[in-house]
């Protein structure tokens, strides 16, 4: 078999490979966020915050009234999820300020890695710390 024939065969195989469907990439709709709204669970502005997260494509679980003793923050459970946690924290900080849920003197939510056996697509958003009223 000549070299040119081999090249032709390889080209044909590559062409067929291009025609085959490629696997789809995972998107935001596979990311599940758990919102802990603390004492402001029934505040209508919390619903606006949830709506903003929904619009970004996240799967948003209904909030609860829990507060974190170690303060507000965005928990992530796999080192590879830090970037997404940072994005979520940025979005939530912006919403909290624009909705007036936090003053300018309050600390921003920061991503924090937790060694808990949760799926890497799970994120916990603790809006308020223990001292919040």
């Amino acid at each position, binding site marked *: 078999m000549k070299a040119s*024939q081999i090249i*032709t*065969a390889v080209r*044909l195989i590559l062409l067929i490979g291009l025609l085959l469907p490629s696997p789809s990439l995972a998107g935001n*709709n*596979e990311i*599940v966020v758990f919102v802990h709204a603390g004492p402001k669970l029934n505040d209508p502005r*919390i*619903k*606006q*915050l*949830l*709506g*903003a*997260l*929904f*619009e970004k494509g996240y*799967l*948003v*679980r*209904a909030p609860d009234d829990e507060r974190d003793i170690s303060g507000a923050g965005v928990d992530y459970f796999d080192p590879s999820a830090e970037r997404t946690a940072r994005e979520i924290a940025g979005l939530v900080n912006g919403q909290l300020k624009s909705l007036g849920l936090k003053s300018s003197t309050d600390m921003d939510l920061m991503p924090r890695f937790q060694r808990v056996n949760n*799926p890497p*697509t*799970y994120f916990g958003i603790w809006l308020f710390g223990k001292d919040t009223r």
Partner: protein
Amino acid sequence: MLEVGHAVHARLQTLGWVAKYRRWIIGLAAAIALFFGVVAIRWFVFGSSIAFGSSTERSIEASWFDTIEKLGIEPRFPPEEDFVVGDLLALVTKDEDDDPTTKNKISDPRTVPFPRRAVKLAHIDVNKALNEEYGQLPFFPNLADPTLSASRKGTAAAKPTARLTRDFSIGVQLKDLPLAAFPRLKIQGTSSASAGASGSGFWGSFGASNKEIEELELGEVRTYGLPSIRSIELLDIYCRNPKTKNNCTEETARNNLKSLTDNRSVKKYVIDAQGNERYAMKVEVVMVYRIYLTRSIKNLRQDLRAQQGGGRMTAVAIQAEATNVPPVQPGTADPDAMKRRIEDLERKLADVQAKNAVVAEIGSERLSSFNGTFDRPVAIGFRGIRVDFAALKARP
């Protein structure tokens, strides 16, 4: 003039290229045609399953549900004795949990075993109502009863002693319950196809055959229950009673389904940009008002598949054939039909089994069955009325 010369030159170059690689082009065209031919035959014989791996096997639950539903009743799988008229159930009717990490998702509640999606909340005492309803109904003596035979022959003062005892408070024998003549259901289908293709120096063929049998036989089915109006009245009274009304609420249903669903029955998700929420599962509270019972069940599902393909170099022949055998009608099925079809395929491919030939055969047989005879009757299906949660909430 120069442009015309270029065009002619280019065309000649193309023709030259085609002539040079004609074997490659013919070979590629033959390979593509063969691939699509095999896919087409598989699609024709095995339906939408065109993947080359094994197809998804239908579960016995799915088969059971499909068959029982054809009779217009809600299936109860696995059949159970502890399932009676008056039972108040909490059921999962839809699982809309989009969390991709969810385990034990109930993708199709119809085909999930009943204990995985339902709990018994309570039992509404309907014995008095059943006695009243059946007390008003006419009945027919058992014609097979020996005392009746004696009576017909004019033997000494023999009177019909065959009497129906339908007192639901003390227990009713299966023979005294109304009969439901369920037909023996048998669904059978057969299909097969084969095709061959040839080119210079190559001959190839592919054939496939498929046969599916589904059979459900229920021995002596009996039924009992309440009329719909009476059962709605009883449920309404129960759901208004201050002592029992909480048993009818959606909240009670969801709380009682928590252990079955890993708490997903009470889980909610945000569903729009306004932050509105929805439960991950839809649930219902149902009161059973009619039951179908049997003491003997035979359910069989058989799926026989065969594929055969082959190729030969150096032969020169042209052959193309496709056959379509219509599904065998129920009751006229020939048990050897599948065997004959496979033999037919083998004959068609016999030419291939010569020098320089390659032949491949794949065959599979899947069998699922459920067969049992029980000491006492078991419920195989039911009819129920649903609690209207919205109307219940609106009550003062």
